[in-house]
Structures are given as structure tokens and as C-alpha cells.
């Protein structure tokens, strides 16, 4: 067990929400591109869920044809500036790169980001749009899945209306992933691109309420990209004390509502002096790093070992550098306080024999209770699909965990209704959401054209 107390005290102060990882310079981008060997069988492409022609675009970067490079990427990925930043490249494209085994893989993500950023700064080019087909498709949700499906369908010539319940489009890209990892100006610019293809985005429309199920099923086809936005709670004592947040709420208050700028912005958030975050994924890292920026000393409690952390290695590293203290092999059992959080009681965990997932099972050590002082407690233990709309559509089947049942084309158990992204796969990644949305859009197009 590694408990990193002490180190946190030496960490630099982090206050601003400016992007942490700076991009490549032109010179570095070209040098990096020259490292690519243009493999005849490029393994990297197999690692990319949307199958970008990676050697193709990298070759153009090496030739300094940045516009050409952007066009190659855009053929498969409408949101490259976002993916270049948030894709878990180490386990996708870069993980498969032939150079990964020898030295370091080609920095595919950073190159993709460079090309996309440069294109945005020099004026973006839109892909061609086919002649109107006269078909009208409804897309529910404007996260990466909904935006991708909308862009693809618009390119095929279909009329597309996207419904989004929040007052801003983007889904998790807007309300979940913080500014310092994904600047919102970039998300907005990429959304503008989708709109420029003729897609209409209707904000403040909660489908199932503002738009009825009958109205929805009146469209020629429906794409559900409603995501996995339902926060899970641990179900422990004291969870309703003031100062206890789901990571979703904490991050939404800051990212969507700008509570970090309170009172210039009206939405408040408890900044806390001592924040405890429970969880070990990307969401937990984001919550911890946001809490640090709001000025709290942050302890992240995770029930397994540090090596088991499911978050991306780079996020864990950044969290460490920003002074987040990691308390692994521990688990909260009770939130202590009168009306507000005063502490979080935890137990120590030990690793037992492997469970179904092949990982050792954490079990609590009897009598090992201890209490961490805290005034804010954030739970980042996972999210499930939001049941609101899907439970209202007759015949729409869901599996045990609430994910929509779909075939490889994203077709649900209801005719003309397709789904992709987190709503179908459970909480996954931006690029998986986009990849599955792209296949669903192709299937919708095929079905509509066959009619």
C-alpha cells in the first residue's frame, strides 16, 4: 500500500482553469510526424475506434500540408480537437503503434490536436453535404454521440434536429470534463461546425417532457444519444448532509454554471477547506483537480491499490503534481456531521483473491476505521444511463444495468430507433461514443434510402 501523505504539502498551488497540457509547436509537430514509419499494415488505425487514416494524415503533417491533414482526419472524425485532447491514446491508437514496443509511440493524439487547432485558427473547411433527401431525423442528446450522428446524417443529406435538455450543447464535453483539460471554446467551435452543416440544435428541450414520445416517434428515424448521466451514490450514512456531492453535480456547478466565478456567476458551490473524493476513474480525477483549483486540500480515497486506478495515467500524474493526496486501499463507510460534513469515516481495505474481472477483490479490514477531516465529500463512483426517456418508449429493451439493447448497427428493439454512445455501452469514452454513433448514422442512412 502506498499512501502519499506529505508529498502533497510540497505541491505547487493550482488556482486557474487554464489548459494544463500545452500543444505542440509547428516545428515539433513536423519532427514528431517524421518519426512515423508509414507502416504498410498500420496497427495504430486498428486501435482507433473511428479508424482514422493515421499514417495518411501524419504524412501530410510531415509535408507541412496541414489543411490536407485536417481533411484526412475529418473524413472519419468531426471532432478532432476534442479527441486529440481526451482520447485515452495510450490504450488506443498509440498503444497499438509499432514504435510503442521499441521506444515511444508516435504522439498521434498530440498531432491530431495540432492539426485541428491550427485549422480552427486558420478558418475551418466544411465537408460536402449531399443533396436533401427529404427525410427528417431526430437526435436526442448533444454529447459526442449525438453530435457525431447529427453531422453524419446531415452530410448524407437528411434534415436533422438535435434536442438537448440543458441550456448548452456538448453533453459531458460541456458539463463534465473541466476547462483545464478541454477548453470550452474548442467544444463550442466544434459544435458550430456541426451546425454549419445545417443541423438544428434545440436547447432546453427534454425529450419525454418538452417533446413527447409520440412526437419523437413521428420522425423518419430517431437516434438516442442520451448518455449515462445518472449519478450513483454509495448509500452510506450521512450522505444527505450539506457538502456531499455527486461528481456530476460538483462538476456541473463549476463547468456548466461557472460556480468557480461566483458571485459574478450566480451558482454557488462549496469550495471546502478539506475535500475528500471517492473513486479512481477519470471522473474522480477531474473532481479532485477541480476541488484543488477551488482551494481545498484534496484527498482521493480509492478502495484498490494505486496501480489499479482505472483513470488515465496522465490524469493521475497531473493530479499528483497538483497536490491531490492519494489514499489507496481505503473506502468511506460513513459521512460524519450534524447538518454539514465534518468528516468521512473510512476503513482500510486489503486485496483478496481475484473476482470475475480478474482483479483482486478489495475487502475491508475489520476494526480499521479512521476518520478523515473534511467539509466537502464528492462521490465519483460511476454513472448509469438516465432512465427518464428510455423508460417511456414502449418496447425499448434495456439490459440488466440499464444500457439499451442494440445490434452492431445501433438498432434498438424498436423499429427506426437507434442508439449509441454511453446510453448503449454504459459509461465509456468520447471516441467510442463517436465511433458507435457513426455506425448507427450509416445504418440509419441505409434504412432511409431503402425506403
Amino acid at each position, binding site marked *: 500500500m502506498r499512501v502519499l501523505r506529505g508529498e502533497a504539502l510540497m505541491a505547487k498551488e493550482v488556482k486557474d482553469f487554464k489548459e494544463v497540457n500545452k500543444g505542440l509547436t509547428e516545428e515539433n509537430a513536423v519532427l514528431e510526424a517524421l518519426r512515423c514509419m508509414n507502416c504498410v499494415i498500420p496497427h495504430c488505425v486498428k486501435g482507433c475506434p473511428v479508424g482514422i487514416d493515421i499514417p495518411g494524415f501524419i504524412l501530410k503533417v510531415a509535408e507541412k500540408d496541414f489543411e490536407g491533414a485536417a481533411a484526412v482526419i475529418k473524413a472519419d472524425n468531426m471532432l478532432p480537437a476534442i479527441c486529440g485532447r481526451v482520447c485515452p491514446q495510450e490504450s488506443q491508437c498509440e498503444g497499438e503503434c509499432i514504435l510503442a514496443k521499441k521506444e515511444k509511440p508516435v504522439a498521434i493524439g498530440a498531432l491530431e490536436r495540432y492539426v485541428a487547432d491550427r485549422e480552427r485558427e486558420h478558418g475551418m473547411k466544411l465537408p460536402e453535404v449531399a443533396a436533401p433527401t427529404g427525410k427528417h431525423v431526430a437526435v436526442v442528446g448533444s454529447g459526442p454521440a449525438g453530435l457525431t450522428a447529427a453531422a453524419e446524417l446531415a452530410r448524407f443529406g437528411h434534415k436533422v434536429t438535435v434536442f438537448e435538455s440543458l441550456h448548452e450543447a456538448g453533453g459531458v464535453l460541456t*458539463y463534465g470534463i473541466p476547462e483545464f483539460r478541454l477548453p470550452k471554446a474548442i467544444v463550442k467551435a466544434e459544435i458550430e461546425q456541426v451546425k454549419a452543416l445545417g443541423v438544428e440544435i434545440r436547447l432546453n428541450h427534454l425529450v419525454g417532457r418538452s417533446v413527447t414520445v409520440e412526437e419523437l416517434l413521428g420522425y423518419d428515424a430517431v437516434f438516442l444519444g442520451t448518455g449515462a448521466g445518472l449519478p450513483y451514490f454509495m448509500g452510506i450514512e450521512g450522505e*444527505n448532509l450539506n457538502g456531499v456531492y*455527486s461528481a456530476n453535480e460538483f462538476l456541473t456547478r463549476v463547468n456548466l454554471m461557472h460556480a468557480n466565478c461566483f458571485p459574478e456567476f450566480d451558482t454557488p458551490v462549496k469550495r471546502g477547506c478539506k475535500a475528500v473524493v471517492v473513486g479512481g476513474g477519470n471522473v474522480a480525477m477531474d473532481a479532485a483537480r477541480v476541488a484543488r483549483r477551488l482551494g481545498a486540500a484534496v484527498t482521493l480515497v480509492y478502495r484498490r491499490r494505486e496501480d489499479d486506478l482505472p483513470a488515465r495515467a496522465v490524469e493521475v500524474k497531473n493530479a499528483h503534481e497538483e497536490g491531490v493526496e492519494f489514499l489507496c486501499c481505503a473506502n468511506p463507510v460513513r459521512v460524519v456531521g450534524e447538518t454539514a460534513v465534518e468528516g468521512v469515516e473510512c476503513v482500510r481495505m486489503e486485496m483478496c483473491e481475484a473476482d470475475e474481472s480478474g482483479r483482486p477483490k478489495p475487502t475491508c479490514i475489520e476494526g480499521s476505521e479512521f476518520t478523515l477531516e473534511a467539509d466537502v465529500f464528492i462521490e465519483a463512483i460511476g454513472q448509469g444511463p438516465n432512465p427518464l426517456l428510455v423508460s417511456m418508449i414502449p418496447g425499448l429493451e434495456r439490459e440488466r444495468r440499464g444500457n439499451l439493447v442494440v445490434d452492431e448497427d445501433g438498432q434498438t428493439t424498436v423499429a427506426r430507433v437507434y442508439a449509441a454512445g454511453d446510453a448503449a455501452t454504459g459509461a465509456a469514452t468520447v471516441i467510442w461514443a463517436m465511433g458507435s454513433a457513426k455506425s448507427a448514422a450509416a445504418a440509419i442512412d441505409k434504412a432511409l434510402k431503402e425506403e
Partner: protein
Amino acid sequence: MYQVEEATQLSENVYQIWVHAPQVARHARAGQFLIIRVDETGERIPLTISATKGDSVRVIYMTVGKTTELLATKKEGDVLSDVVGPLGTPSEIKNYGTVVVIGGGVGIASTPIIAREAKEAGNHVIGIIGARNKDLLILEDEMEEVCDELFITTDDGSKGVHGFASTVLEDLLKERKIDCVWIVGPAIMMKVTSRVTIPYKVKTFVSLNPIMVDGTGMCGSCRVTVGGETKFACVDGPEFDAHQVDFDSLMQRQRMYTDEEQEAREHFHHHDHHGGCGCCGGKH
């Protein structure tokens, strides 16, 4: 952008506005609410849908802090950045027999729409509306029109029965068979009033008003304890079985941001812009 079509002051600190919001107005049912964000830097605040007319919807609100005070400055022709709804599960309306619909203070805003739907479902509808004094009573005419019987109470006796809605309710329960009760008002009023129906085992609904953010089941800010279970008021409610609700926890959570609310209000009145946060792009 959503246009304000009519704005009126109803009493000292209670206002009513009609807003053009077709997607809300066309589908709204009794017991549902909407969320308003007044402007680009605003908070999302939930308000009950009090009436609809064509593509417009009415809300009635009390000025209690920054956002409601800002809303009160909006006049006919002004616009609100965002309106989303209808949110929440509609009231469980059916033919119960005799029902009582109680509104306390600004909670009266919710009652005409519930009373009307209950009436349309075939119920004999008794209304009770109560306020601190006669100047704070609202929607008396509307309730008069839709209810079969209407009782008025004031804490100071300036109009109607001198006392609380709970007293009138208790008398009604003693003298005849009541099949269902709705109570909408401040948490403490709902807590006290709903206790009255326990011995009579009458189904009683209350409309809970915890702090909300998205209103779509995504954040958990609105969680309340009902029958020992955690529920999200914005999607599972806002109406719940009163006898199962943990009102003390609700009231405690409503006070979560007392200090911040005070700060927001002071900031609003002094309007001193600190700047430098970068969020508003220096526009304000």
C-alpha cells in the same frame, strides 16, 4: 431566448410572469415545474407551472434572493435566456371522490391547476388557501372559480378563518370523508399540515422544493428521503406521499448555501465586478 409577455406584481414580494415557451406550455400538467435561467451568468431556478394559455406559461414567485429579485425587474417584452420544462412527474390525478387542495403563501401558485385537473377527473374539490395576512393572499378568484368550496385562512385573521390551513383541514376531516389531499407551501407548513391527515389515513401529497441544478436527474442535488429511500425530486417527484417524507432533511438541505445566497444578494445590490475570472470574457 424566451419572451416575457406579461409581468405583474401580486403582493409586496410576490410577482407573476407569463413567458412564451411553447414546448413547455403545450405539454404542461398539474404538479410540474420549469427551470428558468434569467441571463447568461444566471443560476437555474425551478418554479412551478401555475397556468398555461396557448404557447405561454405562467409562474408566480416570491422574491427571496438574487435570482428572484432579478426576475422581478423583467418587464413585458424583456427576454429570459432559458426556460426548460415541463419537468417532474405530473400530479397523480384520478377520481378519488372528495379531495382537498391546500396552498400556503406562494405555494398557492400551484393550486388552481391541480384543482382544475382534479375537478375534470370528477372529484368534489375543496380548496384551502392561506397566507400570513390578506395582502399576501393570491389567486383567490381563480380558486373560487374552479373549486366546489373554498376556504381562506390568514395567520392574523385579516381575512377568512383566523388561523392555519391545518385547522380547517382538521375540521373537514372530522366532519366528512376526504379521499385525497394536496399540500403545497413552505416545507415547514407542509410538514405540519400533512401530520393532520395521518390518523385519518388519507392519501396526502406534498410538493417538495429542494435545491436543483439540471432538473433532469443528472446531478442528485435534489435528493430527498422518502420512505427511507433516496429519491430525486426533479424526476421522481416533486410530489411525494407526505407521510413518507423526511422534512427535516429537506429543510436542512435547503439551507446549504445560506452564506453564499447572502453574498450573491449583496453582490447584486452593489454590483461591484471583481473581474479577472475570465468566465464572462470581460463582458460584465
